[in-house]
């Protein structure tokens, strides 16, 4: 089986986003099973399943839950919180958004189970603000879950109570970083916190907090229903389970493909009609723009955490943005760099100032007015940014540049010798060849 639809299995049913549609397909069965289990057994089950965070970092989800202090003393005595990171904003990443639109109840059920496991009585779903229809669907799913008795006081007579708040963001990529998200949820500017202490002990309101990605949390009901072994029967040795791969760009069939971890881009392209007619793959991101670029030489890299790492990049969010040979790599890198400069929260100097200067240098290089020395300065600037900021935004900002120069240095030089960009931007559009 190449594909293993679990999260996406019922998206083609017209009422998949309603509680009726979800319940018809065994929705909320896992909740009943979970509430009959000891919370620690649930944590052990998720640990055993091998589920790793689907938001990009790949940290084992069960382990994160296990870090939450329990018991009547110290931090354990404070309220515990679950915060779902639904602030999907990494360029290229487009999985949680359609997921929440098509099946918000799987997220809600996962929220209840996870909150029960970590002993939280308040959970928040922080959804980016720019996707209003998705927010409606999540709001309505939560309301339906309350009406069905899945949320609120003494859920199904278990003695367990939970309130869930759907919280809309307001436009800031940085809030996808978990500590910035927490500051934002507390009503501040979304700026990352220095760690340690980690959110597990000092998160929301300085209380023990789990922050999990949408897809991670939504995978939990299936693990509860199928068991840890069922989940870990899919995937590779250290990257277990199924996941959503998001194919986009100059491909014939962009979209969401749910498969066990470890599929390759070659497999995906071969099965989906490949790149658009007459064109070849030039570069791609395995998991959003913050993961170093790969090329056609990397088509057989297993798309799991270890495989992509070994190829010099990161699995990230499995956002496979594919660009063909009509695309100027400098233009792509410049635009991403403008994005990071725009989204840098300004807290750390290397990131705030560095991204600004990298835009200036890349503009020169792209329009042909730069020099060879600019390339050296650019890489030197990257060196001075990487690892020198509170959060990973800065590291992400240098990824496309360093990898771009590594694989396409000749194209940088070509811009200098030809005094401008040799590419026709019209040729790379989806409507090239169509009269204006």
């Amino acid at each position: 089986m190449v594909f293993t639809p679990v999260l996406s299995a019922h998206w083609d049913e017209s009422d998949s986003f309603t509680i009726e549609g979800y319940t018809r397909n065994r929705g909320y069965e896992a909740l009943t099973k979970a509430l009959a289990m000891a919370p620690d057994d649930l944590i052990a089950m998720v640990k055993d399943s091998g589920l790793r965070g689907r938001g990009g970092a790949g940290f084992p989800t069960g382990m994160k839950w296990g870090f939450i202090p329990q018991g009547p003393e110290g931090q354990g005595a404070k309220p515990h919180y679950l915060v779902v990171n639904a602030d999907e904003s990494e360029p290229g990443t487009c999985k949680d958004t359609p997921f929440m639109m098509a099946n918000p109840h799987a997220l809600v059920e996962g929220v209840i189970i996870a909150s029960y496991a970590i002993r939280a009585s308040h959970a928040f779903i922080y959804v980016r603000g720019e996707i209003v229809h998705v927010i409606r669907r999540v709001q309505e799913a939560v309301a339906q879950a309350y009406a069905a008795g899945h949320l609120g006081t003494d859920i199904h007579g278990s003695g367990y109570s939970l309130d869930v708040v759907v919280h809309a963001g307001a436009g800031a990529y940085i809030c996808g970083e978990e500590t910035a998200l927490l500051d934002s949820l507390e009503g501040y500017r979304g700026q990352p916190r220095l760690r340690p202490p980690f959110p597990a002990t000092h998160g929301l309101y300085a209380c023990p907090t789990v922050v999990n990605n949408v897809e991670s949390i939504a995978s939990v009901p299936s693990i509860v229903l199928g068991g840890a072994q069922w989940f870990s029967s899919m995937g590779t040795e250290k990257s277990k389970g199924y996941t959503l791969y998001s194919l986009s760009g100059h491909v014939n069939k962009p979209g969401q493909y749910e498969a066990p971890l470890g599929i390759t881009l070659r497999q995906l392209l071969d099965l989906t009609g490949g790149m658009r007619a007459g064109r070849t793959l030039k570069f791609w991101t395995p998991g959003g723009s913050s993961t170093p670029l790969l090329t056609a030489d990397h088509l057989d890299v297993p798309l799991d955490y270890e495989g992509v790492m070994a190829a010099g990049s990161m699995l990230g969010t499995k956002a496979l943005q594919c660009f063909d040979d009509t695309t100027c790599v400098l233009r792509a890198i410049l635009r991403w760099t403008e994005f990071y400069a725009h989204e840098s929260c300004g807290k750390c100097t290397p990131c705030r100032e560095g991204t600004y200067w990298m835009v200036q240098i890349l503009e020169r290089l792209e329009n042909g007015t730069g020099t060879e020395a600019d390339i050296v300065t650019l890489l030197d600037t990257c060196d001075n940014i990487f690892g020198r900021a509170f959060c990973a935004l800065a590291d992400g900002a240098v990824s496309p540049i360093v990898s771009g120069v590594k694989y396409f240095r000749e194209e940088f030089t070509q811009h200098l010798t030809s005094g401008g960009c040799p590419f026709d931007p019209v040729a790379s559009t989806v409507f090239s060849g169509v009269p204006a």
Partner: protein
Amino acid sequence: MADTSSPVVLGLPETTVVPDGIPALTEQTRTEVREIIARYPRSRSALLPMLHLVQSVQGYVSPAGIALCAEELELTKAEVAAVATFYTMYRRKPAGTYHVGVCTNTLCAVLGGDAIFATLKEHTGLTHNETSADGTISLEHLECNAACDYAPVMMVNWEFYDNQTPQSARALVDALQAGNPPAPTRGPSTLSTFTQISRVLAGFNDGLGQQGPTAGTPTLVGLALAKERGDVAPAYPTPADAPETES
């Protein structure tokens, strides 16, 4: 020191003047602000939805809106303004009835977003973050809006208008200006205004979530292909072993 008749006033200068055509914040706004605060364990967490609520009344975050939030949360106006100016969705001038966004992050830009944004700038005479004189539309170029498999993507009032071209974008804007907006590609059957959707962002659901498709075609291609191939996930180990329903 001895003179206490003129206390030092912190924060932004008082601005009570509401510009022409902008509705004033009312006691109902204040009531709803308090409803938002009640959702959270700590009041300040309500600030982002409160600012969305201000926009739902006035179309932007006005000085009066900042003052209201500050008063209700017992913060200074400077503290509220510091937050409001950090987030790009909060507008410092009134948005149009229809706020038009074009994704120009790399993937959409390369696939046509740059051409679309250039076309719309020329067609409307507006630049980035500008509102038309009649208040009908405002224009903005966006960062990635999480719909890359539908590129190039436009958003109107944060609803999806997928797979655009310069021609379709011009037609869309013409329809908005004529007061005849087409339905979003993946959204409700009718397009709400900027102020209406801002209420949803403030947490006041408008009941429109039941409208619209579950998904667009790209969202479903993977599932369709799996079905065509007969690919399924392994069955749960003991389907007959469904847990007994608790009373």
